[in-house]
């Protein structure tokens, strides 16, 4: 439908439609009635024409009857004894004419006048009468016929007749004349069904006598209204009016009832549906349907209510599902705590402008060496560990604090209205809770530790930095020797450099993908006491633009981006290439630093084992830190044992900077112990530390381990370590890390 039609004929209410429909019916009724009445009028006209014909017939017949009657009357009058009496003796003619003859019954009651005439045609009357009773005083033979004439506005039959004294009609003794009221006489002769006698009149001139034949042509008349037609018409009209009244009443009633029973409930229904659409609807009670329920509307109501109920149920289910989905979407299925999505939503609210006015602390939790645990004990244990961590952290947090699992083994919480001190206490509580949790039930043999990074809104210019600072702090907390909890400060900024996207980061990524960008600088490790180079420690540098990136920069990026394994792989590849290229002097070897994360990785282990092809020509030493070894001792030991079996020498690096547990030394699969520089420098002192280190060295040496002293920077130190039984020494005094040339 064209637009203009849609606008012109918009939705019309049922009440109005009903009204228009009923109006149409009424109009149809009017039209039908008009046609019907027109037909009746036509029938009436036909009847009128027939009636006129029949009326004329009646008139003609009546005139004939009139003539016969008049003749009979005159005959009787002529034969009447008293008529002859008057003609013979008119002494009392006046009485006879004026009274006797009129009351005798001989004359019809319609007689207006009677007159007797002698044989000469002269009236017997001595008095003249006027008006309707007037009769001519003298008649002639011309008068002896029935005539119709109009006199003084009245129509009369007049007949003059001879009177005989004998039955043989031989002796005429006079004449008689009678004047009869034309219309009255006709009416007595017969009953007219068609002719309206009241309308009958002569159209001839006054006093112009007409014979009956002539009179027929000069009689004007109207027909009686047909009683049957009139009755029929009246009946039809009455029936039509009654029908119209009934139809009208019926239509009004129908309109009333349609409005009452259908339109109003529909209107209420429509309003209710609108309310439903607007979300304000409820169930339709029975009160909406009106005084008399309509089955179809009741079905609609019931159906609507059913629909509404189902819709409500659906909404409830949907709401429940939504809630469930929300829960699923916002909760971590493994631990049941909030997940990253929930965190991001809360974080979005947190990062709106004005955050700096809030007192908010952001804590990031990370499980130390979780990958190793997963690899060592399997994902099932790993999941249990995560659940245990979540349970411990959740229990340590305050009521209302949300704990989020950010992914992997990283958790976070946002502490509102919390200062740094309180945040620290919460973090300590968390550490204690985790430490107190019995992870051994999951099959773990090592203690599980978490690192917590704390950042406070007072220290940030914008909320986005809050997360970054916490991240930085967390990584700082992961450093060996760290109290496992770090609060972000400005001093952490340099190392945070690695957190952000920087050219160094790009260089690291580039080097990972392209080992050619790695430069291995080798530092001599001499064998004591001879001082001959036993092997070189491979120290990685990255050529970046015109400068070299040193490990401090590289490792910060590695730690920040967790690229230890990938980077170690790249380094091993570089080393392999260097070994394959003959860069390492023959008869020597190299020591490779492997991170704690890498040592537990099968890939790194396999990569190292791949270097076994060079074992025939080189001494290959794997250096792992004391901290990484202890924290993942099972898994690391397994891999190290494989390497040792393959021919690799295992060195414990940075001994003394971490746990430095002698108990672990006995179980560690290491061949060499590298004393950390801090430990070696203690030998130059005069305090108990020197004594302890000296005795420790002796002890370890006595245990069969080879000792390597790092940080030899002077001859004296060299001599001292030699005296203590160190088998190897390394330091700037002996040689700086440098590139080897073929």
């Amino acid at each position: 439908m064209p637009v203009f039609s849609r606008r012109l004929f918009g939705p019309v209410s049922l009440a109005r439609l009903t009204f228009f429909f009923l109006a149409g019916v009424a109009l149809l009724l009017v039209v039908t009635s008009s046609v019907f009445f027109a037909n009746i009028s036509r029938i009436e006209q036909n009847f009128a024409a027939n009636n006129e014909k029949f009326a004329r017939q009646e008139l003609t017949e009546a005139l004939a009857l009139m003539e016969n009657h008049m003749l009979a009357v005159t005959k009787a009058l002529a034969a009447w004894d008293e008529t002859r009496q008057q003609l013979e003796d008119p002494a009392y003619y006046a009485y006879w004419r004026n009274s006797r003859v009129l009351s005798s019954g001989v004359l019809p009651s319609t007689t207006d006048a009677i007159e007797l005439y002698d044989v000469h045609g002269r009236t017997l009357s001595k008095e003249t009468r006027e008006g309707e009773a007037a009769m001519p005083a003298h008649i002639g033979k011309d008068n002896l016929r029935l005539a119709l004439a109009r006199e003084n506005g009245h129509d009369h039959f007049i007949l003059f007749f001879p009177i005989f004294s004998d039955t043989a009609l031989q002796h005429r003794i006079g004449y008689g004349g009678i004047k009869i009221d034309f219309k009255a006489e006709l009416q007595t002769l017969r009953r007219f069904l068609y002719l309206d006698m009241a309308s009958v009149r002569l159209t001839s001139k006054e006093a112009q006598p007409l014979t009956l034949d002539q009179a027929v042509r000069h009689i004007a008349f109207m027909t009686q209204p047909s009683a049957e037609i009139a009755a029929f018409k009246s009946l039809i009209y009455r029936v039509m009016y009654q029908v119209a009244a009934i139809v009208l009443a019926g239509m009004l009633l129908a309109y009333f009832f349609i409005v009452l029973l259908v339109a109003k409930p529909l209107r209420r229904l429509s309003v209710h549906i609108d309310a439903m659409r607007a979300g304000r609807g409820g169930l339709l009670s029975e009160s909406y349907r009106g005084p008399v329920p309509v089955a179809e509307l009741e079905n609609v109501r019931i159906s609507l209510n059913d629909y509404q109920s189902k819709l409500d149920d659906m909404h409830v289910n949907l709401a429940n599902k939504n809630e469930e989905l929300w829960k699923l979407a916002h909760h971590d299925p493994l631990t049941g705590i909030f997940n990253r999505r929930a965190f991001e939503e809360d974080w979005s609210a947190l990062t709106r402008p004005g955050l700096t006015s809030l007192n908010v602390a952001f804590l990031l939790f990370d499980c130390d060496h979780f990958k190793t645990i997963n690899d060592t004990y399997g994902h099932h244990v790993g999941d249990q560990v995560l659940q245990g961590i979540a349970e411990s952290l959740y229990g340590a947090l305050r009521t209302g604090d949300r704990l989020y699992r950010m992914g992997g083994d990283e958790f976070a919480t946002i502490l509102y209205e919390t200062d740094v001190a309180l945040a620290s206490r919460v973090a300590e509580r968390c550490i204690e809770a985790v430490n107190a949790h019995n992870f051994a039930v999951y099959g773990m043999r090592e203690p599980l530790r978490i690192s917590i990074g704390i950042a406070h809104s007072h220290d940030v210019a914008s909320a986005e930095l809050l997360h970054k600072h916490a991240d930085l702090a967390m990584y700082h907390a992961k450093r060996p020797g760290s109290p496992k909890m770090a609060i972000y400060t400005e001093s952490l900024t340099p190392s945070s450099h690695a957190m952000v996207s920087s050219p160094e980061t790009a260089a690291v990524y580039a080097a990972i993908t392209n080992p050619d960008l790695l430069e291995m600088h080798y530092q001599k490790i001499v064998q004591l006491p001879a001082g001959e180079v036993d092997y070189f420690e491979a120290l990685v540098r990255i050529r970046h633009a015109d400068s070299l990136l040193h490990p401090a920069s590289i490792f910060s990026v590695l730690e920040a981006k967790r690229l230890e394994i990938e980077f170690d792989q790249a380094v091993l590849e570089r080393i392999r290439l260097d070994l394959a290229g003959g860069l390492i002097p023959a008869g020597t070897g190299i020591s490779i630093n492997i991170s704690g994360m890498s040592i537990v990785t099968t890939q790194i282990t396999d990569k190292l084992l791949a270097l076994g092809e060079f074992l025939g020509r080189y001494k290959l030493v794997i250096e792992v830190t004391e901290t990484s070894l202890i924290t993942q001792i099972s898994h690391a030991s397994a891999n190290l044992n494989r390497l040792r079996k393959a021919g690799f020498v295992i060195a414990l690096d940075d001994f003394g900077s971490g746990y430095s547990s002698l108990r672990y030394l006995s179980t560690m699969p290491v061949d060499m112990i590298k004393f950390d520089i801090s430990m070696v420098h203690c030998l130059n002192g005069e305090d108990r530390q020197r004594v302890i280190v000296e005795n420790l060295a002796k002890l370890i040496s006595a245990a069969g381990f080879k000792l390597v002293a790092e940080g030899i920077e002077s001859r004296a130190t060299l001599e001292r370590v030699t005296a203590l039984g160190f088998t190897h020494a390394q330091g700037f005094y002996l040689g700086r890390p440098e590139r080897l040339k073929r």
Partner: protein
Amino acid sequence: MSSSRFRQLLVLPCLLSACICQPLFAETVEARLPTGTFATAEFRAGKPDLPAVLLIHGFMQTRDFPTVSRLADGLANAGYTTLSPTLSLGISRRASSLPCEAVHRHTQEQDVAEITFWVNWLARRKPGSVVIVGHSYGSLQSLIYAVGKPAPTLRRVIAFSLVDTERQSDPRTVAAMLSDAKKRIARGETQLVSYPLGYCKQYVSTPQSFLSYARWNRPDILRLSRQSKVPLEVIMGGSDDRMGEDWPEKLRSAGNRVQVIAGANHFFDAEHEFDMLDLTVSLLKSSEKKN
């Protein structure tokens, strides 16, 4: 079965045959009266040796009045010559009874004159004795004729239901009417008057006409009966009380032969019609014997 009943049964077929044969015997005769009025009568010729019977009808009636016509038929069938005139009452060829409201100018005297005329006519037509049989007022008129100058051929007057016109009216009322009429006559008034007369409640007539009929009362009848120049036989119906129950006795007391037919009314209709005929025939036969 009684003889009268037998005669009734015998007469009936005769009457029936007479009715059938009537048109063959009846003759309507017309005569111009001395007054110029034409009067008519029905004549039936009978046996020449039987007396002729002149039947006079009642007041303002005609010869076709059932009582008279049936008697005429019966007598004719019995072989009697009958003449049944219709007294003209001043109207030529009067054929119908004259209503009370008609203009009555006729008088008793004219009626009696007309009876005289017909007696004479009958005598000329059928020589021999004549018996007048009158009914009702016709009996009185016949008696008046018989008291006057009856024809020599008149042998008897048989008067059935001999009455006057009083009809037992209050004598003072009758006297007043008579007096009024006389006064009018005396004054020469010619206007029509209307008095009750006979069975007419309103008898429209000239005073003369009224007086001519009304003046004859019972004493007059009784007197006339004694003055009749011919034997008078009065037959009254036992149920006719127009003249009073004692009327037959009074007539007898006047020296008249009076017979009362028990149960008959003024008109001797029904079965008394036969009694009337029988008695008439009987009286006629007795008249023959006396002749």
